């Protein structure tokens, strides 16, 4: 008998009485302003920073001011095309990505309760991009906010999904004596640019 049959048989023999699948609670969604201010304060909690696009000025000036030592800045967002930023198209060659200092990607949904942002696979030229880059910038439309994870999953579809990611802040660790260090294996910083 193969493992599959053995395991399924053992489960059928041993499993408890059927139990109802619970339904989900309905919760108040909160007003837009509440969502935005909660989202922004949660971004700080998770170690990210944020800025409103209309207040940051010209992208290339902003980038050269804030990422002074960056040699390679790439974007996957067609809306951001500025001097010194490369548009990154689909690539299967991950080793093209090791020297990226800053990557700008578009998020499709932000979650107010925890500062997490959904990055779908489609606009990414390579799945590893948000991790391999030294610094991550996520652009997010201010209207694409939900209150919590229940609403987030309700709004997202898994149809056709190959890979998808919630990211909440920069890569971090506290594995050495519980001291928080940003930049463990993935991006060292995370900046969220909110636009309208």
């Amino acid at each position, binding site marked *: 008998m193969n493992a599959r049959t053995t395991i399924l048989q*053992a489960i059928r023999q041993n499993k*408890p009485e059927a139990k109802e699948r619970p339904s989900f609670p309905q919760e108040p969604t909160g007003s837009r302003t509440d969502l935005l201010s909660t989202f922004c304060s949660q971004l700080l909690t998770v170690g990210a920073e944020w800025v409103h696009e209309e207040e940051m000025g010209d992208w290339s000036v902003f980038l050269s001011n804030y990422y002074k030592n960056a040699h390679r800045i790439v974007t996957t967002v067609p809306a951001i095309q500025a001097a010194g930023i490369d548009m990154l198209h689909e690539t299967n060659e991950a080793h093209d990505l090791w020297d990226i200092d800053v990557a700008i990607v578009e998020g499709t949904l932000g979650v107010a309760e925890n500062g997490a942002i959904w990055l779908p696979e489609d606009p990414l030229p390579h799945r590893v991009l948000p991790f391999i880059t030294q610094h991550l910038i996520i652009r997010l439309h201010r209207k694409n906010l939900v209150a919590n994870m229940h609403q987030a999953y309700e709004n997202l579809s898994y149809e056709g999904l190959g890979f998808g990611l919630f990211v909440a802040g920069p890569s971090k660790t506290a594995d050495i004596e519980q001291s928080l260090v940003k930049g463990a294996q993935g991006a060292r910083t995370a900046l969220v640019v909110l636009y309208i």
Partner: protein
Amino acid sequence: MSQHAKKAETFIANEARTDWHDASLWMVREKRDRASKSITEWEALRQMGSDIKDHVLANLDTYLVQFEENALQNGVQVHWAADAAEHNAIVQSILDKHQARRVVKSKSMLTEECHLNQHLEKNNIEVIDTDLGERIIQLLDEPPSHIVMPAIHLKKQEIGDLFHEKLGTEAGASDPQYLTEAARQHLRQKFQACDAAITGVNFAVAETGGVVVCTNEGNADMGVHLAPVQIHCMGIEKIIPRWQDLGVFTRLLARSATGQPITVFTSHYHRPEPGKAMHIILVDNGRSKQLGREKFRNSLKCIRCGACMNTCPIYRRSGGHSYGYTVPGPIGSILTPGIDLKKYSDLPFASTLCGSCSDVCPVKINIHEQLYWWRQEIAKENALPAAKRWSMRLAGWTLAKPSRYDRMGKLARWALRILPRFITYNQMNTWGKGRELPEIPKQSFKEWYTKNKS
């Protein structure tokens, strides 16, 4: 003396260090409290997590089959392993097929349970644990002492010395920022050269056929997306029914584990990248058997957050290694007797039964009750150490009759007054280690009450 008590004795020999360990974990427990209290519906959320998991256990076969069907449709290869040996052989065969010799691995308690690393190393495969804490203990050749914070028992100076020896960091350097940066550089080289990536699984969704992995470091994704083949190893109890259920568990997991509102990365792997391969291994290894134990089956609801460890007064003061199993602490102590009752018979006793573990458990496992029930199973199986077996029998005999209890009380009050100390505090009296009896009263409360009630 039991194994746990013996090993704990070594651990607490250094009092300052025990206090430090205790305080580190209590700090995490306090973070968990703050995070959970920030959500008004927290208790309802726990109930929902618990209900979903109960529902899963009652339909585990159906959901596993549904999961397999959907995963296959997504182009994922699904394997079933009845035990650890079978799991390791499957991993090995996948690696062989892809001629993979350099493997990067992110945290997986299941592969620890199956001793996968040792198996692969024996077959000349390099396995690099890529979570910082796991890498530290791998370099030290130690097992993890905590399921979420594997190196919580180590001081930064010890890690500094280790990195100096193994990674060439400056001698005496112990700044966590500096050491983490050194590990980052070291691990990025390993990611660059890897042939395969192995991860554990936090949640596997029957409805989608996809698996979800949560990390803070991003190490799982660095490996998975860079390697030509990705392997996800999971216990069969990791199944949840729907995509929507992820909302419940992603809210519970990180808040319970570290007090974060969510882990930094919550990755959903559904399909392999074109030209790459994705495998999922479903492992039983005793879980279907545990499902048949009515009193103990809901230990399978565990989502491995580690909250029960952080809150446990015994765990905090005895360290994870004293339990002698991959999953230590309260949850480990109710999982292990089901695996080997004789070998782990001391673990359900490594508890004060205070119930704090059950209070913080995000899926409401009645851990402290199960600890108590396992004690009874262990006594029934005659697996108690002799001193405990005889003292329990004597206590049972004494407490069975009020008159006997009165007589034995009188005898004890007399004996404890006149016997020399070396007899009262003999080696059999493990209670008397580090504890002093109170002054022996002349009469029992009952005698005093009868005399004074008018």
